[in-house]
Structures are given as C-alpha cells and as structure tokens.
C-alpha cells in the first residue's frame, strides 16, 4: 500500500525527516507516534505530496506520489494537521469544494458518512460556528468521503474531550473493520493509539526508531507474571527445576515476575507448580504499555543522538 524509501527532508540544514524507510500493509491501522517536532507531520506531508522530499521517494499502490500524484492519491483521503475549513461557508459547501464531489452518488455517500460521524442536520451550518469536536468529525468525514482505500489522519483527536476521543476511536475502528480500509493515524495520546492501531511506527528526531506489529513490539521480553498460593515454595521449586528460567523476582502483591529464555516452557512451569501442590491463580505474559515502550525507545534514541 504505502512505501517510503529513504525519505528525507532537510529544512535549512536541519534534517526534519531522516532516511525513513518502511512499508505499510493493506487493511491495517498504523499508529505513527513521536514527540512534538519529531517529524510526523513533515512525513505525512511528503506522503500526501504537499512537500517535496530532499531525498528518497514515497509510493502508494506502486505510484510515486511526487511524480504521479493523480494516480498515487486517487484512493487516498487525508487530513493533515488541523482541519482548516472555510469558516464562512457551510459544511456542505466545504465538503463539496474540498472533496470535489458532486452528483447523486456523491449525495448518497455524503449522507452515509455524515451519519457515521454524527453530524446529521448540521450540514447547512457555517463551519465557523462548529465546535472543535465537530470540526474534527467533519475533517474525518472529508477524509472518508471519496471512498478511499487509504486514509491518513493527522492528530484527529486534538482538542477533543473524552467523549470526542471515544467517538473518533469508534469511527476509526468501525471504518477499518467494515471496509478493510488502511488507516495511518498520528496522535500524541499513546493510549489512544494502543487501542486502535495494529502496527506502530515510532519516530524521533526525524528518524524511524521502531516499526512493526503492536503486539509483537509491546510483548514483554519473555517476562511472565505468576500469582501462586505460596510464592516462596514456588521460587524454590522453579529455581531447581532445570527449566529455561533466567530470573525470578517476587514483586509482593503483584506476584512473581519470571524471565524465561524460551517461551515453550510456559506450560512446563504451570504443570510443575500444580503437580507440586502450588495453586496457580494467574499466569500471563507481561505486556509493555505503549507509553513505556515509547519512553524506552525515545530515551535510547536521545542517548544515541
């Protein structure tokens, strides 16, 4: 779907985006995260052809965005940064101008999308009278209107209250699930991304520092959490069990954290404990939060740079 190859943008000697290469798979939701000024919006502007790369290229469905813009963006709907509509025009007129749509099919599609983003009955109002949340939802409607197969949403939750956040999250998930649309979304709210994205890309100082399936990236480093009836007995047993266990840490109320070197031994651990009369009430792989993953990676990147 989307492929960035060595994408670089230099502003007055500063590398805003530095040699970014990744490929986004079809039908997935990719969350692009990074601190303010990391280069997220610059990257998205190159992806949508708004700015020219200093080096590298972007292709969408095999078409170079800067050489063959019409074909590359034919199935793309995008909102970059703030959805800046024409405040003196009605929402209907704004969508008509910005999407370029017209005719009966367009009207039918418009009605569907407007229902989806909960703006029914407000199309005749001037956008200048809309609240922040309504403008964001109208922005999403604009991105969805052309029946795109690839949607780019840059900070769609900016300035929204908790209800607005839930609403946007619902729309993204629903649209991706119903139509298999590929969605690239950026936000500084890591918990939001964690709930909607299938894949994540972490960007800092213009460099891509992590990219991949969110479950794989957030999987603990072979860390298990076990809650047992007798922690001391369990530690003694497992330390001498000859299993591929690297380290056992008693966290107290949180149970035991066991670092293993081979994931296949999880069943053996459970079996060994139960067979020795130790009741196991919880056995989970420990998953990192996106926040801890993000901090870990951006801090590493800070030290490296």
């Amino acid at each position, binding site marked *: 779907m989307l492929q960035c190859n060595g994408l670089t943008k230099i502003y007055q000697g500063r590398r805003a985006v530095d040699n970014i290469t990744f490929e986004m798979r079809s039908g997935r939701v990719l969350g692009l995260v990074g601190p303010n000024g990391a280069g997220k919006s610059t990257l998205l*502007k190159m992806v*949508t*052809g*708004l*700015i*020219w790369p200093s080096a590298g290229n972007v292709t969408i469905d095999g078409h170079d965005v800067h050489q063959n*813009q*019409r*074909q*590359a*963006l*034919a199935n*793309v*709907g*995008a*909102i*970059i*940064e*703030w*959805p*800046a*509509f*024409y405040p*003196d*025009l009605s929402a209907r*007129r704004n969508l*008509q*101008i*910005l*999407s*370029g749509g*017209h005719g009966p099919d367009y009207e039918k599609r418009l009605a569907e999308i407007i229902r989806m983003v909960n703006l029914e009955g407000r199309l005749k109002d001037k956008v200048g009278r809309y609240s922040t949340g309504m403008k964001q939802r109208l*922005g999403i409607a*604009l991105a969805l209107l*052309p029946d795109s197969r690839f949607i*780019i949403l840059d900070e769609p939750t900016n300035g929204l209250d908790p209800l607005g956040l839930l609403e946007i999250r619902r729309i993204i998930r629903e649209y991706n699930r119903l139509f298999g649309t590929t969605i690239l979304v950026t936000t500084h709210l890591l918990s939001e991304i964690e709930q909607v994205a299938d894949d994540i890309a972490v960007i800092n100082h213009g460099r891509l520092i992590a990219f991949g399936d969110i479950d794989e990236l957030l999987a603990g480093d072979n860390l298990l959490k076990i809650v047992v009836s007798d922690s001391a007995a369990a530690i003694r047993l497992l330390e001498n069990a000859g299993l591929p266990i690297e380290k056992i840490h008693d966290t107290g109320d949180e149970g035991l954290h066991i670092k293993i070197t081979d994931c296949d031994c999880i069943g053996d651990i459970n079996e060994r404990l139960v067979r020795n009369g130790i009741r196991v009430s919880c056995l989970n792989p420990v998953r990192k939060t996106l926040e801890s993953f993000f901090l870990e990676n951006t801090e590493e990147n800070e030290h490296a740079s």
Partner: protein
Amino acid sequence: MLRETYYEIIKIFTQKKNYVVIFGHLLMLLLCYVAFRTNNFHFIGGDVREMFGDITQFVDGMFFARLAALPTFMMIMPIFVSTIAGDIIAGEIQDGSLKLYLARPRSRSRLVASKMLAVFVVTLIYCIYFSVLCLVVGILLVGKPLGSQLIYMRGMGLGNSIVLMDLAGATWRYVLMTLYYSFSLMSLAAIVLFLSTLFNRMTAATVSGITLYFVCYIIERLPFAEKIAPYMLSRVMNYPDLYILEIPLGRFAGNMAALGLYVALFLMLSMISFSMKDIK
C-alpha cells in the same frame, strides 16, 4: 476547471473583508461629489472656459461619472485586486485550507489557472458595479446625461484630452473603459498571484503587489522619468487613450498585447512556482 473557478468565486464573495472596498468606494464617491461641488469647476482651465463659454452647460451625471471612475480604476481597484490575488493562495496557505485541498489528486497548475480566472471574473463584476454606481450617483446628484459631452481629462494623469462628443460616443467609450480596466487589472493580478505563490502570508503578497503598483505609478509621473515611463506597469495599465476622438488603434492594441504578455508571463511563473512549492 469551470467548477473550480465557480468555487473560487464563491470563496471570494463569502469573505466579508472583500466587501470593505464597496464602503471605501462609496466614501470616495461622496468625497468626490463634495470636492466637485465646492471647487465650482475651477479645476477646468481658463483656456477651456474661453473656448466653451459657460462650462456648466456640459456638467451632467456622466461628466461626474467619468471623473469619479478614474480614481476608482487607478487607485481603488488596484488595491482591491492586489488584496484578493494576494489572499487567494498565500491566504489559504496561511489558514491551512490549502493543505486539505491539495491532499487530494489535483493539478496545482489547474488550481492556479482557476484562481486567476476567478480573480478576473470578480474584478470584472466589481469594475462593472463601480462603473454603474459612479453613473447612478452622477445622475442622481448632478443630473441626467446631456446630448453633448465635454471630455475633460487634463490633470487626471491621462494626457490633455479636451474633446466634445455626442452622448452615444461618450457612453460606449465609458463601457469600453470599464472593460479595458477589467482586463488591465489582470496584469497586476497575475503579478500579485505570482507573489502569492512565493509567500506564506497574505499580507506579504498583497503589500508587495500594492507597493509595486504605486512605485510604478509615482515613478512614471516624475518629470525626469519620461524615458522609462512608457514601460512602467501603471502606465501600460492606465493609458488607454479611449477618450480622444480617433482611438489610436495601433497603440491600443499594443497596450492590450503588453498587458496580455504580463498576464501570460506571470501566470506561467505562478504555475511553476506553485507546483514546486512546499505547502507547510
């Protein structure tokens, strides 16, 4: 392209700031009328008075309209055209709406062309409106047009034309003048449109355009600038010689060609510049 142009025209007409010029023009008409009445026709030279006798026999609504139309086209309209042409790209970059628009598969050259066409249509509408308004105000406040029209252009920056012609001749020249200015203002619009593609702020593009026009306007009037005056943009825009008995067609065509060249050159530069521009 026509649909895009239509949308651009809607955008221009829905911006309240573009109506300020109407109030400015009304104020100018009012001041023109007060000046016209209080001057008691002393601005008309003694030689003309001697030649035509009682000068008031030629003063009518159309006489006033001709006098009021000149500052309209030479001062107010260049400022207005610079404002809309400066805003039409740089203003949208500044507001961020161009990012929404161009994140779709669209030709930037086509967008520039449709914006230029929209500026032309709006300028034409405003020129016709102001022309008609000058005439209506003239008829209401000064009187109905008379059969013989005294064309007095001395001191207006348009040569020394003092001509007596019939009403029909004066009327169609008034119409021709309106159309000529609608087109001549396009050369300024094309230059400001080009500036609008260079800057990310509407004020920078507009002020640069207005400055350029008035610098040319001032320079061409300096007594020692007579050699370069014919090449100044304001001279090409404002010197149609439409009110002399025999319109010099060669010179008129030359003016139109020069204006067309300005429009084509700066429209092309705008397209190139905008196609290469980063929309930040």
